[in-house]
């Protein structure tokens, strides 16, 4: 039963079952006015977000799409300018099975007995991991994710075992992974140790906090040149020591692992402060009650750190490693300045590989290397987030 509408010109309009809306000539106009007045308010969210979206599109997504296209083309000069000729997956093929294979993937050799044992062990762990995914209630997505991780990680370990074997040489892909894994591991534990020291009530800790931060503030190229001078064992400051040790005829620059070690030293020197400062902040924000309670219970200093403090740092640790990992994959300055990627291609990272191709205007080849790096970083970051980051965060 509808209620009578007593104003002239008023009419009843149905809108939804059990609901009515009154529309009058004057009300219609007022509603439109209100709607018009509200329009800016309704658009405010969009207008605030739009600049960021456009910026992201033009600075990030657009170049990403263009470089994907470039990786499928070949750059050539033609009368009147240049042309991009479609070549499909040829640039990727060149890296994986073509003339760039040894550069990108390395030179494999048959594994030694130790290599086989290591690979067998890793393969067993990965198989177990994949099988547990099927038997656990993680759903189809979880099973596929675990299987994909097991296959890719297994392939990576197989590549590492074969190219790190005597006579083999790792390519730019594995060299980059070595920089990432070794660099982050050392940076984390060194940063944690320094943070732990600076968190103690000792004299001069403020001074050391600043000093330990300095390397992070220097431009990477500056660090690379500094290390180049420091590590010049013929003329540098350590030359007399090197000679006194009877090593005047030996130079790190001639040895693949010597050169990689120097690059990693520079990287560790530069990035340990980042770990240090974040971990120091985390350490200082830990509640004192737990530590005091443990001390009352007679816990040793080692137990205090290992059982009380460190577990509370795990969420920060996990995020720190994720941020550093994504950044570490992009290493270029140090190998470029220190060794130009040499000796041979021993210190060449994926970014340097792409950069060298780009310098000779092999733009398609360069984009293909960059995309391979993107795939690796995405896979590593996703695997880390799904397999480690969430669990560590939940466990904490």
């Amino acid at each position: 039963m509808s209620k009578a509408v007593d104003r002239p010109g008023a009419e009843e309009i149905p809108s939804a079952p059990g609901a009515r809306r009154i529309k009058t000539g004057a009300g219609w106009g007022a509603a439109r006015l209100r709607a018009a007045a509200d329009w800016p308010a309704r658009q405010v969210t969009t207008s605030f977000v739009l600049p960021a979206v456009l910026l992201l599109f033009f600075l990030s997504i657009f170049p990403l799409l263009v470089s994907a296209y470039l990786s499928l083309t070949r750059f050539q000069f033609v009368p009147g300018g240049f042309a991009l000729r479609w070549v499909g997956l040829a640039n990727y093929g060149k890296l994986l099975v073509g003339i760039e294979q040894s550069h990108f993937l390395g030179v494999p050799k048959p594994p030694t007995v130790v290599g086989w044992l290591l690979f067998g062990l890793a393969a067993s762990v990965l198989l177990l991991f994949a099988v547990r995914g099927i038997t656990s209630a993680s759903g189809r997505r979880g099973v596929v994710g675990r299987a994909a991780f097991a296959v890719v990680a297994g392939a990576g370990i197989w590549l590492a075992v074969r190219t790190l074997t005597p006579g083999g040489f790792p390519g730019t892909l594995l060299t980059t992974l070595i920089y990432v894994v070794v660099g982050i591991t050392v940076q984390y534990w060194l940063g944690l140790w320094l943070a732990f020291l600076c968190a103690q009530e000792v004299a001069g800790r403020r001074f050391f906090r600043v000093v330990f931060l300095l390397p992070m503030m220097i431009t990477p190229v500056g660090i690379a040149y500094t290390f180049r001078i420091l590590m010049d064992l013929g003329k540098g400051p350590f030359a007399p020591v090197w000679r006194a040790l009877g090593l005047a005829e030996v130079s790190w620059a001639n040895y693949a692992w010597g050169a990689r070690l120097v690059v990693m030293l520079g990287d560790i020197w530069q990035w340990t402060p980042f770990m240090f400062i974040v971990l120091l902040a985390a350490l200082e924000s830990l509640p004192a009650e737990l530590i005091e309670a443990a001390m009352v219970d007679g816990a040793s200093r080692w137990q205090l750190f290992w059982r009380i403090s460190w577990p509370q740092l795990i969420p920060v640790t996990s995020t720190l490693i994720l941020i550093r990992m994504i950044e570490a994959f992009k290493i270029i300055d140090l190998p470029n300045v220190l060794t130009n990627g040499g000796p041979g291609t021993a210190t060449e990272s994926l970014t340097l590989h792409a950069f060298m191709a780009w310098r000779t205007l092999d733009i398609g080849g360069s984009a293909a290397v960059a995309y391979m790096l993107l795939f690796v970083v995405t896979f590593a970051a996703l695997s880390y987030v799904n397999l480690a980051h969430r669990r560590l965060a939940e466990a904490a």
Partner: protein
Amino acid sequence: MRRRVSWLLVSILLLLPLAGVTPAASQGKPFDGVTVNVLTFTGPQIAEPLQRRGPDFGKLTGAKINVITVPFSDLYQKVLTDVATGTNSYQAFVFDPQWMADFVTPGYLEELTSRVNADKALQWTDIMPFFRNFSATYGGKIYTVPLDGDFQMVYYRTDLLQQAGLKPPQTWADYFKIAQTFNKKDLNGDGTPDFGSCIAKKRNAQSYWMVWSVAAGYLQAKGTREGSFFDADTMKPLTNNEAFAEALRVYVQTGQYGPPDELNWDVGDSRSGFVTGRCALSIDWGDIGPLAVDPKTSKVQDKVGAVILPGSPRVLDRKTGKLVACTVQKCPYSTGGVNHAPFAAYGGWSGAINKAAPAKVKDAAYAFLSYMSQPAQSSTDVTIGITGFNPYRRAHFTNLAPWLKSGMSAAAAKNYLGAISASLNSANMVLDLRIPQNQRYQQIVLDTAIAKMLAKELNIDQAMKEITDGWEAITNELGRDTQLKAYRESLGIPTK
């Protein structure tokens, strides 16, 4: 009142030059208000003379010369991305004439033939024919003004060789004998052992020219037109045969007498090593000669000799791929049975003009390049080590006065210029590669394979295969016919 008068006087004094001198001075200057951005590589070499002489040129003509520098390895792509994207921030380039194939084909460079022909002050015919016809010309048209002459030579210590009763090296066997004699001896009196041979072997630097300086004498014997990189009929690389294997073996062996970190030495290190007396031998362009004269840095003043690149008594038989002994037929230009093939590595820094620049700016840019090359300026510049400019005009070879003024003795100047002349006048001179995308052939494939070989990542056979496969892949990618045509044209062979 006195204060007011003082202010008035000061103002008049300050404004007088602006009111009177400037307009008068600007009258008659052809390029007033014109700015030319010149792109070249980060100095001090090459950039230094341009930066030093830019203001002098400005005073004469009114033009403002801005010299913008980038690292050498970035120069190629910096020029091309600027012109290819239409940015056109630079109106002139001082770069490697080897790259002309990539710059001229798309039409990025201004043709200079008519300007050069009309420019008497440039004294075009005074420039040695090689630099005129090879470095400056492409497809029969002039595109660059030569500013530098480039040949690789072997430098030796005259005092050491004299003491030991040795002669400058004619073959690589001689080179090793000298290197072995002086390796691990104190050559500069600082009490530490020094090195028999110093060669820039750093990756992504100049190593790929150095290795070709060794290989050239094994690969090319029948004159410049034979070429040393590819078979001029099939475009098949000449990098997988006994001759190239021998050249690589020699190149690797030089490391036995080099500094321990030689694989990380570029020419900056090898030049510094030689002029500070740490090396008995070195391979380099013409730079060590003038650098050795500088009393601030040199410990080997008047102790430096230069000689044409050592040759080989055995050369490549192109039909069989074997290394065979020189005969009159096989090595028509040999001396005493030794085939010398001086390598014109790089081709000499040259100046070019961006075709898209405004007409007036192009005029100013050309005038500046011409000014830099004219004998009045260049005769002095080639004698200064820091310029990186080496002799390329007849006047540079015949007029010894600037060399003597620079501090070089007459004997040293004659020796140094003689070595360059011998290279320049050789009928078996080896031209550097000048085909489309030669950067990928040399700076990527050749350089990487050589670096891997020196680092023992590859053995000699594997390195040869990697270079050959890599070059073949690029040739197939860019089109064999196109590349072959460009290669033949670069050697002056008519296209079939």
